[in-house]
């Protein structure tokens, strides 16, 4: 349903119309606006005053009623320091490989020597093996790396001294064929050399993590037992003195 003709005429004429308001209307309106503004302003002042009072009380309470905290204070050390410490500790562990061996469980070691040698003693880590190597063989090592990369990989993993391997490989190159007896002899020689190195440089004592834990627990238990005994002793003596005094 649209607009009727007279409705269109009505809206046209009414929308054009303007009625001038009274002269004093604006003054009335501006007075109302002024009063509204004034009523707003004091609120801000009161709010500001209240906020400063509350803030003052808070600061006062914080400054003068500082509780003595028995809990340990946590200090946030910057990350750089932590990194430095880590690096230092790593350096120390490299200097003392035995301590690293203790820290790592046995399973973590890469490959025991048993796989290659039919011998009995497992070598802990390739890192450890490389730590004990003399630096003379660096040249020959690079040459061999180029010639026999597969062989070098093996030695790196198992941790066999490179001199032995170099010797064996040179023999192999010379003769072309190696008999079983020669191989056995070489292996035996290598084993004796390894043993000699170990006895001189490292203490190849296996440390079991679980046994260490057990030891610590036992120590703790012992100390607890001692404490209990001490308490019992004290109690006993107190009771004894009390009985004696009563008598």
């Amino acid at each position, binding site marked *: 349903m649209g607009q009727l003709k007279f409705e269109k005429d009505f809206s046209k004429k009414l929308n054009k119309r303007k009625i001038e308001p009274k002269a004093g209307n604006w003054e009335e309106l501006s007075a109302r*606006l002024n009063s509204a503004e004034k009523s707003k302003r004091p609120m801000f002042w009161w709010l500001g005053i209240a906020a400063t009072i509350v803030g003052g009380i808070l600061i006062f309470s914080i400054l003068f009623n500082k509780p003595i905290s028995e809990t340990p204070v946590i200090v946030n050390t910057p990350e750089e320091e932590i990194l430095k410490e880590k690096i230092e500790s790593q350096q120390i562990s490299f200097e003392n490989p035995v301590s690293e061996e203790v820290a790592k469980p046995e399973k973590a070691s890469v490959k025991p020597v048993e796989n290659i040698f039919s011998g009995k003693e497992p070598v802990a880590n390739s890192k450890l093996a490389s730590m004990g190597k003399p630096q003379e063989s660096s040249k020959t090592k690079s040459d061999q790396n180029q010639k026999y990369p597969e062989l070098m990989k093996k030695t790196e993993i198992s941790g066999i001294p490179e001199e032995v391997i170099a010797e064996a490989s040179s023999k192999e190159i010379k003769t072309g064929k190696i008999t079983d007896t020669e191989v056995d002899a070489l292996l035996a020689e290598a084993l004796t050399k390894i043993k000699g190195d170990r006895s001189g440089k490292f203490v190849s004592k296996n440390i079991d993590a679980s046994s260490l834990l057990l030891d610590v627990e036992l120590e703790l238990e012992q100390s607890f037992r001692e404490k209990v005994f001490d308490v019992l002793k004290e109690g006993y003596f107190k009771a004894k003195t009390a009985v004696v005094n009563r008598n």
Partner: protein
Amino acid sequence: MKVIPLNKNETQLIARAIKNNRRAQQCLYDLHSGKMLSVCRMYVKDLHHAEEVMLNGFFKVFKYLANFKNEGSFEGWIRKIMIRECISFLRSEKSLEFKEEGLEDFDGSFNNIESDINVDEIQQIIDSLPEGYRVVFVMYAVEGYKHLEISKMLNINIGTSKSQLFKARKMLQEKLKTQNISGYGTVKI
């Protein structure tokens, strides 16, 4: 070319009026008060009351001027505020009643009468309508609101809005007929 500087001027005035600049507020009041009083007068019979409503409306306009976004026209925004103010005034006076009447006696068609009467006579005819009829008629025919919008603004059913408009139209048509016959214009059907 003339509209752009005027609009620019108005936006500048609005910006200053938001900062409670009285001169700017007065300028805006002077620009729109004539039209807004006319709008209020359409809804409110008494001119004195209409002025009161308009002042209340302008007070709200300046109070909430910061909420005005330059999406529509500033005049349209003020007009809406004025209409709402008029409705709330009529409600406070308890004169705004919407009688739920059936349209049994209404045949559904209007004679498309043309009126040739002046604004004061139009206002007189509109004033003669009951409050409910008048408000719905003005909102629909003059302001251009849809029945859904009217029903929302007045909190009534769409059906009620429609019936109020039908009744208002019928009454106005009869009044216009009598006025035309009595010499104000000629009957054109």
